[in-house]
């Protein structure tokens, strides 16, 4: 019943990853950059599930589970940092946050 070759899934996730990297590079708002990081993590997950399904092994899906956990932790800490920065600088645009300059 499944007649889609695995390349299609890989190309789809490569496209999603590229779109995510594009967003991280060109957007100015830190929260949109976060969304693009989630896109990249999702594309990696899609690759792992595709391989796990085509090779008939469940271990790949376990790793997807781990990636999701780390993504949740990363989103919580990252948004806390963004809110702390917003409280000090009143902006979340990354080109205006240049407090590390000397």
């Amino acid at each position: 019943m499944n007649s889609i070759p695995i390349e299609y899934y890989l190309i789809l996730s490569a496209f999603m990853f590229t779109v995510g990297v594009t967003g991280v590079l060109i957007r100015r708002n830190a929260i949109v950059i976060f969304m693009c990081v989630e896109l990249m993590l999702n594309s990696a997950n899609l690759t792992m599930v595709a391989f796990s399904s085509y090779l008939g092994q469940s271990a790949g899906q376990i790793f997807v589970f781990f990636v999701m956990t780390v993504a949740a932790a990363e989103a919580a800490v990252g948004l806390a940092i963004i809110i702390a920065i917003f409280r000090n600088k009143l902006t979340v645009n990354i080109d205006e946050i240049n407090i590390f300059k000397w």
Partner: protein
Amino acid sequence: MTIYDIIFYLFAAITVLSAFLVVTAKNIVHSAFYLLFTFFGVAGLYVLLGADFIAIVQIMVYVGGILILLLFGVMLTNKITSVEIKSGTIHVLPAVIGLGLFAAFVLSTMMTTKWKSNPAELPFTTVYDLGYILINEYVLIFELLGILLLIALIGAASIARKDKE
């Protein structure tokens, strides 16, 4: 063209289109809602690949947790009444050139490699296998991830909290 193919192309189109719109949308709230469609599209692809449990976890964790958290972030960091929630772009041209090369490299690698292309027999449900592996072979990583989540939540709360004078 079977019904399976049609469903695949449908979900792939939803995923690709909304992923593109996440990056290009001017309004941050619109970006967040396009991200919702991307997550649902990927969840549909997981179902097609026979990963039913992962699909449910995807919807619960990403849509129910991370996306809501992102929307909270948008609401907390943009004063909706006074400041516009639009945001611009920077360095578009160098990024597009570099990523065009990157995408060409990845795509050519994927096209020219000979993958094992006929799918394995799909199990009826993956929940039993996943639970068994998670508690036996990967139990150490499982416990470590629990500790990681706890530390991340405590850290997030203490960073985002207002300092008491």
